C-alpha cells in the first residue's frame, strides 16, 4: 500500500495494523511522508525512544515534530524541547488537542497519531471518538492529512466502528 497515494484520495484515515508488525508499519509510513512537515503524536513511546528509532531507520527528523504524551508522566520534563512538545499524560485530551492544534497551525502537511489503541487504555469509546472528531476537524481546517493508527484487536472493535464513521477511509492491514 502506498500511503501517500491513499492520502491523496482521503484526507483523514484510520489505519488498523496487526500487533506483530505495528511499529514497522508506522515507521515505514512516517519515512514515506517525512519529506514534508509531519506532526507525530506518541502515546506509547517517549521522544528519546522515537529518536533512536528514527536514527535506526534513517528518518530525517528535520521535518518531524513530536508530541510526546508519555515522558512527563515518568520524569520531570520541560513543556518543549527542540523538535518535541511534552504533554502531561495520554489522559490529558484537552492538553493533547491544544498541542496538536498549535503544531498544525504552522503549516504541517501530515498528522500521525500513534495510537488510538493506547488511548483506549485510559479512555472509553465516546471520549476517544469525540477526540478523533476534534482532531480531524483541526486537520481539515489546517489542510493537513491525518492518520490515526490502532492495533488490530477484538477489544477495539467498538472504537473502530465509532471512529470509522468520522474518517474518510478505514484501512485494515490485517485483512
Amino acid at each position, binding site marked *: 500500500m502506498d500511503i501517500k497515494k491513499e492520502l491523496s484520495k482521503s484526507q483523514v484515515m484510520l489505519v488498523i495494523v496487526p500487533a506483530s508488525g505495528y511499529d514497522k508499519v508506522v515507521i515505514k509510513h512516517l519515512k514515506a511522508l517525512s519529506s514534508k512537515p509531519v506532526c507525530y503524536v506518541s502515546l*506509547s*513511546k*517517549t521522544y*528519546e*525512544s522515537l*529518536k*533512536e528509532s528514527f536514527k535506526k531507520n534513517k528518518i530525517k527528523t528535520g521535518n518531524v515534530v513530536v508530541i510526546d504524551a*508519555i*515522558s*512527563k*508522566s*515518568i*520524569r*520531570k520534563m520541560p513543556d518543549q524541547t527542540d523538535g518535541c512538545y511534552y504533554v*502531561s*499524560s*495520554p*489522559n490529558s485530551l484537552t492538553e493533547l488537542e491544544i498541542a496538536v492544534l498549535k503544531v498544525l497551525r504552522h503549516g504541517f502537511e501530515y498528522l500521525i497519531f500513534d495510537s488510538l489503541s493506547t488511548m483506549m*487504555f*485510559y479512555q472509553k469509546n465516546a471520549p476517544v471518538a469525540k477526540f478523533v472528531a476534534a482532531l480531524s476537524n483541526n486537520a481539515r481546517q489546517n489542510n493537513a492529512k491525518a492518520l490515526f493508527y490502532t492495533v488490530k484487536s477484538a477489544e477495539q472493535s467498538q472504537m473502530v466502528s465509532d471512529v470509522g464513521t468520522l474518517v474518510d477511509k478505514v484501512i485494515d492491514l490485517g485483512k
Partner: protein
Amino acid sequence: MAKTIMVVDDEPDIRDSVKTVLVKNGYKVITAVNGDDCLVKLKSAKPDLILLDIMMPGTPVRDVVPKIKGIKIAYLSVVRTGEAEKEALLKEKNIVDFIQKPFDINDLLKRVKKIVGA
C-alpha cells in the same frame, strides 16, 4: 518468612496472572490498581518489592515514586523508552529494575527472585 511483593497495575489480567505465579512460588502478594491505591495500601503494609506499572490512570508514577520510602521498586513498562532514559530511571532512588511489557512470566519470576530472594 515469605517475602511480600506488591503488584501495582491497572490491568486486572496482569495483576491476577503475576499474583498467581508469585503466590505459587511462595511469595505473599498485595495488589493495587494504581499509584494512589498503592500509596494508601503502603500505610498498612511494607512489601519487600513493588512491581509498579509505569503508566496508569491517576497520579503519575513521577509523583508516586518519591512518596515511597525504603522499598525497592521495579518498573513494569508498556511504554518504550530510550536506552539513556532507561539508565537514568534506574539511577533513581529505590528503582532496581525496568521490566518491559509484554514480559515472560518466568523471566519476571527470575528477576523478582534476584531482587528479593526466593
